[in-house]
């Protein structure tokens, strides 16, 4: 952002005193803009630029689309879970590891076929659902709005103002 002419900011503190405060504000909870505060300016040295970084805001459309994709993925995963449980139920009825002394029947074959069919459906729905969630997560990262960076070029001018019982020492510059 270019400095706006005519806008004058009075910093009621010396840069040397303001830097720790800015740093504290940056680390405090709820501090919206990130500020790269300049180090203390020594005598005869020009203070460094102050960089203010403001995070970008996502558009409602972006949130709705990505959220919708993620929710669709979760819903498809839920359908996959349904078929998963159905497959497990049918599979438990026919799966054996020891002799059962029972003949194989058409009813058991039907359970066997259903277990395989539901298992395949579960895999498909899990796959599509997982892909949707992954796509939403990737898109969320790729569509992150850019942050705005504002650079303040401090040109301190010593100011001394009397106040009741003392004085305020500060600097004035334009940006």
């Amino acid at each position: 952002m270019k400095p706006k002419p005519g806008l004058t900011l009075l910093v009621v503190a010396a840069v040397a005193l303001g830097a720790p405060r800015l740093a504290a504000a940056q680390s405090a909870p709820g501090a919206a803009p990130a500020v790269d505060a300049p180090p203390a300016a020594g005598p005869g040295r020009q203070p460094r630029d102050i960089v203010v970084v403001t995070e970008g805001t996502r558009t409602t459309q972006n949130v709705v689309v990505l959220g919708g994709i993620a929710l669709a993925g979760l819903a498809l995963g839920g359908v996959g879970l349904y078929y998963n449980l159905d497959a497990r139920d049918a599979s438990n009825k026919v799966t054996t590891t020891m002799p059962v002394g029972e003949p194989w029947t058409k009813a058991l074959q039907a359970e066997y076929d259903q277990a395989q069919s539901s298992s395949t459906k579960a895999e498909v729905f899990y796959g599509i659902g997982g892909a949707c969630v992954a796509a939403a997560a990737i898109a969320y990262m790729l569509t992150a709005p850019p942050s705005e960076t504002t650079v303040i070029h401090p040109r301190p001018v010593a100011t001394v103002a009397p106040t009741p019982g003392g004085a305020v020492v500060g600097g004035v510059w334009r940006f």
Partner: protein
Amino acid sequence: MRATWLALVVVAGCQPSVASGTYLCGDEELCPSGQACDGPTNTCVVASTAMPFTCMDMHEPDDTPQQAFALPTFGCTSALYSEDDCLAAGDAADWRSFAAPTGCTAVAAQIEITSPIAFEPLALQLWDLTANTMVATGGSCPPSETATGSDAACVTQTLVGGDSYGIAIQPAGGGDCGGKCNFNRYSLQVQTVTP
């Protein structure tokens, strides 16, 4: 992404898995996909390990009443006679014969055959060979006498003392895998009792 892989692992655990040799063959050699009916044991095994049905018919030729294998002499009441035999592919019948005991107040024969359901169903007939008439056909047996995976046919028939009787074990028709399993093994049990 990790959740997706975990889900796939869960699904993999839901594929039905039937270990070889755990199920008996069903009707007409019915077995799970990928398995086949093992002839000697009539159990479902991995298809590549299934052996063909073999039959050692102990009393051939015994296809007619005249060729019938003679059973031991029975008294008015007898111990249980039991034998295992088989009908080979295309075998029309196995015959057994016995003489009804004389001097009994009354005597009846209890006859039962059991056979796996995997191969062709078998029928049981009792003939009075002296009169050359069929006197009984096999019916259902008490449930307690029917083993799982087996068919059973029973006859209880009062006998005429001194007459010669014949037991015919024949294919019941149908259920032979379209001719591919037109054979079966069976157990025959005979006993005389006082009715």
